[in-house]
């Protein structure tokens, strides 16, 4: 238990430093691409603007695994100017998600994990129901209320 607590506190510190260094403000929406499902990531990028609008935010930032070159190029081509891209290491991405799973550290943040942790059932919905990736992104991840 003590180890778990220390790990989480370290992750929180890691996020705070990252946020300051990258000038991420509370007025920005954050999208974190997990790389678990490429289609989900792509659709999330495409519809991120709607998420920002719903949250009454004028700016956004996308966090992406720095080794996902194709995805980074895709985002650059498909996002508006008010959306920044920050690439980071996969381990740091995982840390931020683990922290989020204990205590969400930002008010307007969406992660595209669908199978992690083990009881995140979004992936199962994709397998077992008639829902497609676009519907999962719009209704569940971004809670837009429409597809």
């Amino acid at each position, binding site marked *: 238990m003590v180890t778990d607590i220390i790990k989480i506190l370290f992750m929180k510190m890691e996020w705070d430093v990252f946020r300051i260094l990258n000038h991420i403000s509370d007025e920005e929406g954050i999208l974190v691409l997990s790389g678990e499902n490429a289609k989900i990531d792509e659709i999330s990028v495409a519809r991120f603007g709607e998420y920002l609008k719903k949250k009454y935010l004028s700016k956004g930032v996308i966090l992406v695994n720095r080794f996902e070159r194709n995805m980074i190029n895709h985002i650059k081509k498909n996002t508006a100017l008010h959306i920044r891209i920050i690439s980071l290491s996969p381990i740091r991405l995982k840390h931020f998600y683990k922290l989020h799973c204990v205590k969400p550290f930002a008010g307007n943040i969406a992660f595209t994990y669908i199978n992690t942790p083990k009881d995140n059932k*979004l992936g199962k*919905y994709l397998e077992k129901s008639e829902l497609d990736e676009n519907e999962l992104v719009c209704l*569940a991840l971004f809670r837009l209320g429409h597809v």
Partner: protein
Amino acid sequence: MRDYEKLKLRNQIEQIFQSGNLFHKKIFLWGAGDFSRCIVSELLKKGKKVEAIIDNDKSKQGAFCAGVPVLSLDDVSGQYGLNDSEICFIICSDFWKEIVNQLNLAGAAKEKITILKKEKDSLREKISDAVKGEKIYKNITEQYGKGKVFLCPYTGTGDIYLIGSFWEKYIENLKINNYVFIVLSNACKKVASLFEIKNVVLLEKMIYAKYLIAYYLLKNSSLDMVILNDGWRELPYSCTEWLRGYKKLYFTQLFRDFVFELPSDAKPQHPELKDMNDSLQELFQKNGLIKGKTVVISPFSNTLLDLPQNFWSDISKSLLEKGYSVCTNCGCDTEQPIEGTTGICVPLDQAPQFVNFAGYFIGIRSGFCDIISGCNARKIILYYKKNRFYNASAYEYFNLKDMELCEDALELEFCMDELCRIKKEILEYL
């Protein structure tokens, strides 16, 4: 809604009341749901009436929540004017930021808005909760031995009934011998006792569920614990609740496919009922009710919207005139019997037998309807037509036929302007 949330809300209301900010004010709440119900009831105790509840959900507009009309922001703006000095808005929602923005854009000044759910637990509080959760978890597992821990972190009796109806198959599938089944309320425990569920533990305080979840989250889901729900909001990564009702993802299907992961042909099973004729005979005699000719009215629901009181009193009057005895199922002290009827707190572990003994049941859709769904009595279940539950109508999501719980109930959807027709239909059916 949990008891500790209610307590917190009660204290907050008390503070606002003491500050004098509500004197001579027309109060508007935001969001037709549990929190507004609680605020309405707390303010009523202090003699303050809520003018209306504002909700963006068009399906709720025009209905009633805790006896208060539900309106759109445009309606309120048109009828009262958002800059009226006597107006104040109370928001109690996780989405308060968006709501404040909407109110500001519509012209409501910031000083008119009171937010009751602004602060969220800090990471320090979450860790402190997890430490408490660890103690509770260890106490339970030490008492019952090693095994899976199932947590039902809600008070919905309908959910427990649905879980019970799949339990045998689920446990058989998991191939486990020992487990603990944790519930939050005595009502849930009673419903669980209808089924063959072992080691049912009632948490001493509801807040313990929050601690257990914090512990579970800190352990990164590595605990042998299962949260029995299709999308529990307290898990920060869980967002599947927002898919409810979309593309026919209804109550039974969600539990069968995604909570229990059973094959699609697995059917819910009602429990075998114990013979309680003697004690029921006594209860009926004591309350002047007639066996086989009593109508049990169940007018209260925690999840769905209500019907006006006069609808129920009209129905009761007609039934009494026709020679039926009529009782109201009053689950707690805030639920008062319908005028002219006997108020009975039907014990949930005897509810199916009670309704069978009575012979007739009329109720707004609530968890009680799930519990009595296997009865032979004539049953009428009412659903407000405009009432939505996530992406479906309340009827689509909760009707007992599609839930595979009951084929023989008369399930009716109603609009507020057709209550006379509904009343006629009910009386004809009986």
